[in-house]
């Protein structure tokens, strides 16, 4: 399980012994520490938690909360905002920054103009009751850190600039020793909140499956003329979705997922060229867009600068022909792109085979990474953290061992299928919307499925899939998702239906849930014994 090293673990003092060690002070790790802080039974007078960050948190601490927008922005579901309020973190948020989103418009188009697009318009919920908040990741991180440093003194120890170099199980398996340089600490349980390349996951010998998408996402802050900016837009292009996510009346964040070659080529267009390209990405018909992309790629591969005047020409034509009716359901034209905000990263899907190792447990990106099209990455991590906090509070109330397999089982039983459902649905949507059959009107060839597929997207974007609490989750039967995918995925999909039925059928349903939640494998193992 853990790396075997020749030298024994040196004596570890009382001072370096912690009930819980959290590796990674990103949003998942910080939110976990914050959650634990709000649990009375867990935070007894003698409870000590160590939060370790490999880098420095100074940038987070000194973030001013003013001026230029961060390019890493996440959609926080209303449910998670409530959770952050409950644990006292939302009070520390720079309140002027998060942008409520009350409306989402999603569409795809393959016709000659955007008027022929199949479009779904989500019900207006009003800004008083927004479905999500676009929040800069640093804003949330700073709020969580402030809460911890304010209320966690002496109980939550934050250490920076320390990387785990070794993890080993103590004699008898009652604690895990962690080495940072020459220094050892020990913890009753170690949380891997250490991201996609999680060292904790590696030390725990937990495999992770998944695949990279041949897709990168380009992010940037966009500026436009002042509007009532509380509507998110997402268009599914053959190369991936382009999303417009509001930040303020005149600023918006962009997440454009497309091929790595195009991302590289777009970045060479410069802020002005990119701004026009983004406008085309939202407004231009698919065929013309594909032609433009071909030209841009050709220029890029030859190392030539693409003539951005050509883009302007296209853009002016579109603007001149745009009707007021069409403009209503499209985002505002982009005036400029903040040049420092332009960045890109590869997209991938991954899911750890298990969330529990020997006295280790994974949360957030260490457990799963998801395509950003649903904007659920951070939300999944927060849901993990919330459940783990609740599970541990109960374990501690009943005198349990926080790191024991049995103690952690309820966490993975609740989160694994929920996350798996989101991951697989998002994965499927990525491929489905990327499918184009040449020469055939895509929307027509796929027919009604397009409209049906928008149901799940809607739920995804509204954070209704895999979210607990909202009792109405996943009632949308008849989704074609059910017909596809692995047995496991299908089982996970069915679980929510089971959950709905559960109130009626009680324990009989739990039978189905065991199969789904723990996986048929576990049951078979048990039967085979």
């Amino acid at each position, binding site marked *: 399980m853990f790396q075997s090293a020749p030298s024994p673990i040196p004596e570890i003092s009382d001072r370096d012994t912690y009930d819980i060690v959290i590796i990674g002070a990103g949003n998942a790790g910080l939110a976990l520490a914050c959650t634990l802080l709000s649990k009375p039974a867990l935070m007894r007078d003698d409870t000590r938690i160590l939060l370790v960050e490999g880098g420095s948190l100074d940038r987070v601490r000194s973030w001013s909360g003013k001026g230029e927008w961060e390019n890493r922005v996440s959609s926080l579901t209303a449910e998670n905002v409530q959770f952050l309020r409950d644990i006292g973190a939302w009070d520390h948020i720079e309140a002027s920054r998060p942008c409520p989103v009350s409306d989402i418009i999603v569409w795809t188009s393959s016709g000659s103009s955007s008027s022929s697009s199949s479009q779904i318009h989500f019900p207006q919920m009003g800004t008083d009751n927004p479905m999500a908040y676009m929040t800069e990741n640093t804003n949330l991180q700073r709020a969580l850190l402030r809460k911890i440093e304010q209320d966690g003194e002496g109980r939550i120890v934050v250490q920076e600039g320390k990387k785990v170099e070794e993890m080993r199980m103590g004699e008898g398996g009652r*604690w895990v020793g962690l080495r940072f340089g020459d220094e050892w600490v020990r913890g009753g349980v170690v949380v891997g909140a250490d991201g996609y390349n999680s060292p904790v996951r590696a030390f725990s010998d937990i495999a992770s499956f998944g695949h990279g998408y041949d897709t990168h996402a380009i992010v940037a802050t966009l500026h436009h003329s002042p509007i009532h900016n509380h509507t998110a837009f997402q268009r599914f292009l053959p190369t991936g979705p382009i999303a417009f996510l509001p930040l303020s009346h005149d600023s918006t964040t962009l997440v454009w997922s497309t091929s790595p070659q195009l991302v590289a080529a777009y970045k060479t267009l410069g802020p002005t060229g990119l701004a026009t390209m983004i406008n085309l990405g939202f407004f231009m018909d698919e065929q013309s867009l594909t032609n433009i992309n071909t030209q841009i790629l050709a220029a890029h591969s030859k190392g030539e600068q693409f003539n951005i005047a050509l883009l302007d020409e296209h853009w002016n034509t579109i603007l001149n022909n745009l009707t007021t009716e069409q403009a209503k359901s499209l985002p505002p034209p982009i005036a400029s792109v903040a040049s420092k905000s332009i960045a890109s990263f590869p997209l991938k899907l991954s899911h750890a085979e298990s969330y529990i190792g020997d006295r280790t447990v994974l949360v957030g990106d260490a457990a799963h990474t998801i395509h950003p099209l649903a904007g659920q990455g951070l939300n999944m991590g927060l849901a993990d953290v919330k459940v783990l906090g609740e599970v541990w509070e109960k374990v501690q*109330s*009943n*005198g349990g061992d926080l790191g024991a397999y*049995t103690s952690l089982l309820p966490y993975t039983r609740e989160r694994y299928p929920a996350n798996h459902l989101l991951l697989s649905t998002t994965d499927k949507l990525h491929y489905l919307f990327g499918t184009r059959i040449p020469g055939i009107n895509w929307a027509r060839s796929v027919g009604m499925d397009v409209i049906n597929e928008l149901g799940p997207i809607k739920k995804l974007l509204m954070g209704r899939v895999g979210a607990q609490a909202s009792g109405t989750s996943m009632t949308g039967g008849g989704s074609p998702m059910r017909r596809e995918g692995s047995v496991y995925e299908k089982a996970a999909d069915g679980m929510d239906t089971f959950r709905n039925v559960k109130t009626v059928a009680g324990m009989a349903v739990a039978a189905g849930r065991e199969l789904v939640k723990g996986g048929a494998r576990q049951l078979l193992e048990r039967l085979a014994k």
Partner: protein
Amino acid sequence: MFLTRSPGAVATASKIAVRQTQQRSLSWISRWKSSTPDAALSSSPTLPPQPLSAPTVTPSQPSPPPLSGSNATPPSPPSANAFSTVNQAEIDHFSRLSSQWWNEKGEFGLLHKMNPTRMEFVRQKIAQGVQDDEGWSFGKRNRVDEQGRLIKWEGEAARSVRKGKWLEGMDVLDVGCGGGLLSESLARVGGNVLGIDASSHNIAIASLHASQDPFLPFRSDSPLVASTSQSPNSAKQEGKTGSLRYRHTSAEELLKEGKQYDVVCSMEVLEHVDSPGEFLKCLADMVKPSGHLILSTISRTPLSQLLTITMAEHVLRLVTPGTHTYSKFIKPAELLAFVRDDLGGTDVWEADGDGLVDGGREGGGVSVGEVRGIVYDPLSGQWRLWKEGLPFGDLCNYMFHIRKKSV
């Protein structure tokens, strides 16, 4: 021999004692827990002290000095003439399994899963007994702070319950502690816990396991179990309340020492002992006034036979065949009747709830004690306490609680 017991009491005890004639003599009888050293053990005095097999135990190290407190008496080996309710075959059975105690995915996996639910029951019973209004005054009652938030008044005891240290300051006895699953949990919530077991193997395993945990307030009384290399006994003890000790002894032997406890637990033991009546009397005598006696055991019904023996042992092989003996199971009504008729009834114990006559129970009369079903939901993989007042929950595994009157 049996201390305070009159022959009459022994006779009535036999009413409830399950038919022992059917008892098979072999090691296949029990599982999950054994209790106390035993007549059979003492009948073979040539038996050498059990060597400890765990490699990390260093028998040669001297025992730490006895700590002050009630459990400072050195462990006494069971005397040859002592009456005991322990069944040697059961002890042998569990001794063989002792190394398995802490394998959560093995033989005792179901028990590991049951432990939090048993603790939940204990917590409900103890927390229920905490006087929430202790120390209440006009000055301290609910008030509103500057931000307009309601500050609820909370007594010290109620606060310790909320903060998870709900056994703080209480002496707790775990009879038939096995590998220490329950004892460790009781100690973590602040209890001064003594775990006793009839199997020296179990005590060795329990002591070793506790000694390796830096978070447990473990104190070794035994010369056999010394600290391991990580000096766990000294680690992270600062600020820890509660204590944990283990002793290889029987309930009957312990009773002779005359100490009483705030909470006496005996989980999954009753169905393994030879004379449950004598055993229960012994436990009852060790409960302090206002103290609690909490048991868990299995009822004798077709359902329990199907689930605990046919399914768990023979079909699913979750549990070693021979762990349970159907005839030794005890029905809740039998247990309640025993408390009423043979343990002093309402003269000694608090009446249940409002103390009204409970006609539904076998034999009628005022009901003393509470029975709560505890049901394994194989599909969610968790044990659940059956909802209070609902029927059928106690057809298989159940929890039992009685509280002694204050005087």
